[in-house]
């Protein structure tokens, strides 16, 4: 019951907050939101619970203690993508999720479980035999830690370190053993920091994957995100991704491209609350001209003019084909770029990084089709890991900003299919151990029981990500000139097909013809009017 009340309070204050999102900090509306947050704070002090007053030896022990009171929590979590890492897209019928998709970052989870599952909300997923039905394997702390000391490292199958550990290995840096009792006694609501501990670090590092999600959003300034600004509205992730029964709305496998409008508290609603329109509605501007734009242009297109704006670069290219090079002594090496970031790593290949990235823009209707492992590909073309569908004519599309991540990755030459390869492991077949592609691919393909011809090459790939975070203050939204009639000759939407954009689509001859017609019409009116006046006066003179 308490939880329900808290949820309602969050919805209520969240709606007030988002409805006033355009107001500057310090306005009465912002003050109401902050006061609301304080009033909605927890009624339970977990440090007083005897169930948590003990020296836990492992994460699952903590979970068992949590479940003594929160009896349904584990079962709720186990129904979500955060647990299953699987998603059946009802629109396309494709079986997606981290467990099934091969991306062009670290590529695939199978054969690399212990490493990748540092970001699983569970404990012990070290191979394909992980028990998805065991409630004690659910990791409560990774989302509910408020101490900032709970950390899951790659290579530990989703467990935190229970003893002081040198990480990365041979780095000389020691990660302290987690104090499970302290963490368990200080649990609370999820926060930007807890969500960000995985989502800010997708793709193997800070800001690598998404570009609009990185650790600069942990304590962002207003310029970086008007909603999450630490000195402004101070939204947590859950304010928009309004969670019920541990099911967090918002999906990159089936995004909502054209939200219906406001979601009202108490109204039966199946829409996605994690959309701009769910708070701001479909006509949020005072100027009607802008509202007509919003029918065909996603809010994010204008209000997120660039991503990776928080000072942390995002990776824009990953070329696996150059991985495996060794120095003269036969040892792996790294090359750094001008800012000290890795531009080459023998383990991973070549990278390119960028800050303040101008998005690419496409028509998008919410349907995403994936190139899965079993999909046949054409190696002479750039393979789209995911294709965002959309058209100006289908009535379901809007122009969206996206990050397009480009790279090269291995594929099976015999079957023309993407391959799974074994990057990390304590065996000698892992790419990062022996730098031998043949063995790494053979191992990975055997792990998933797939056929492999024994021959591989590298194919160029692209993967697209919708840009939805890092919403700039309204005064920094794109202006008219950045799409229409750009003085520089370059407009943001130059590459978006099938739409007439005055200025962008200007034809000098047609413009001259049009203005000429207008001038002639004006001249005609003046001459005609003048003659009428003259003849009228003449008539008056004759009459007199």
């Amino acid at each position, binding site marked *: 019951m308490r939880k329900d009340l808290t949820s309602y309070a969050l919805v209520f204050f969240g709606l007030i907050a988002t409805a006033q999102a355009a107001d500057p900090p310090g306005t009465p509306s912002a003050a109401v939101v902050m006061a609301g947050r304080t009033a909605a704070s927890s009624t339970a002090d977990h440090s007083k619970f005897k169930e948590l007053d003990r020296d836990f030896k492992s994460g699952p022990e903590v979970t068992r203690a949590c479940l003594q009171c929160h009896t349904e929590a584990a079962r709720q979590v186990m129904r979500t993508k955060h647990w299953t890492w699987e998603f059946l897209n009802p629109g396309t019928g494709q079986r997606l999720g981290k467990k099934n998709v091969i991306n062009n970052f670290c590529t695939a989870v199978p054969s690399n479980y212990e490493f990748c599952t540092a970001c699983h909300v569970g404990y012990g997923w070290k191979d394909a035999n992980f028990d998805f039905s065991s409630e004690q394997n659910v990791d409560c702390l990774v989302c509910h830690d408020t101490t900032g000391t709970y950390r899951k490292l790659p290579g530990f199958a989703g467990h935190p370190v229970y003893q002081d550990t040198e990480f990365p290995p041979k780095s000389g840096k020691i990660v302290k053993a987690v104090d499970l009792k302290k963490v368990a006694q200080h649990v609370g609501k999820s926060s930007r920091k807890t969500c960000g501990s995985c989502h800010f670090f997708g793709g193997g590092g800070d800001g690598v994957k998404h570009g609009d999600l990185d650790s600069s959003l942990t304590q962002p*300034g207003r*310029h970086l995100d008007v909603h999450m600004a630490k000195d402004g509205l101070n939204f947590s992730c859950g304010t928009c991704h309004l969670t019920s029964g541990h099911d967090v709305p918002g999906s990159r496998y089936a995004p909502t491209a054209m939200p219906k409008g406001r979601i009202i508290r108490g109204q039966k609603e199946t829409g996605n609350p994690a959309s701009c329109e769910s708070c701001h509605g479909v006509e949020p501007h005072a100027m009607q001209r802008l509202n007509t734009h919003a029918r065909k242009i996603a809010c994010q297109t204008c209000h997120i003019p*660039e991503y990776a704006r928080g000072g942390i670069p995002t990776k824009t290219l990953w070329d696996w084909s150059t991985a495996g090079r060794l120095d003269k002594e036969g040892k792996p090496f790294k090359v750094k770029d001008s800012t000290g970031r890795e*531009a080459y790593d023998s383990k991973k290949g070549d990278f*390119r990084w*960028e800050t303040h*990235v101008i998005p690419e823009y496409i028509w998008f209707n919410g349907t995403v089709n994936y190139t899965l492992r079993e999909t046949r590909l054409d190696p002479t073309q750039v393979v789209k890991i995911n294709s965002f569908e959309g058209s100006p004519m289908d009535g379901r599309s809007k122009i969206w900003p996206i990050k397009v991540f480009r790279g090269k990755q291995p594929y099976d030459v015999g079957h023309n299919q993407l391959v799974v390869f074994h990057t990390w492991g304590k065996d000698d077949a892992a790419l990062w151990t022996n730098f031998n592609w043949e063995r790494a691919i053979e191992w990975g393909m055997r792990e998933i029981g797939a056929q492999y011809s024994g021959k591989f090459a590298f194919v160029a790939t692209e993967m697209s990500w919708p840009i939805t975070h890092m919403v700039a*203050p309204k*005064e920094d939204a794109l202006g008219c000139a950045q799409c229409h009639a750009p003085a520089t000759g370059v407009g943001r939407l130059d590459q978006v097909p099938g739409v007439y954009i005055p200025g962008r689509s200007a034809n000098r001859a047609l413009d001259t013809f049009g203005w000429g017609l207008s001038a002639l019409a004006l001249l005609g009116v003046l001459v005609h009017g003048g003659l009428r006046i003259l003849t009228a006066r003449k008539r008056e003179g004759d009459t007199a």
Partner: protein
Amino acid sequence: MLKAFVGFVAGVLATVVGMYFAMPHLMFNEMQSPFGFEETIARIQHNIVGNPELKAKGWALSGLRDPARAVAAEGGNVLPVKMVEVCSTRYSKPILKDDTVRYLSILMPCKVSVYKKNDGKVYIATMNAGLMGKFFGPTVGEIMSQVAEDQKLFVVMDPSKPAPPMILPTAAPAAGGGGAGAAGGC
């Protein structure tokens, strides 16, 4: 006679109008960089500190100014822009000693601006020192023409050289995105 006079006046007017529109473009040089934002800055910095010819002429980095930082501090956004500040006392000293042109200290230190535009590309801008110098008499004109020649070496973008590390200011930037870490220069 009248026709010749009218023609002369028309010619003068046309020249003035032409100069009015052309001058803003003549006073500054802009070029596109083939490299990313940070790498462009780093290459300019290393062109300056790593070139013996420039070193012999006294050129040294005097700061790296970030005007976008000040905008961000006030809650706003602009595309990244940084100015590599560089100076040589060989050139600044004669100007600073001469009361009649001392006001030109406003142009010091010499700046190379690196910025990104809405097309996502990185650009480099410098002052057209050679042209500007011509307006301030022979002494300044001579100095500025030499500066203009040296500036060309600042912005050489040689893809055969690996990306060097960016030289960061040695002290925290001052309020307003000011440059810092002046190891040399003016």
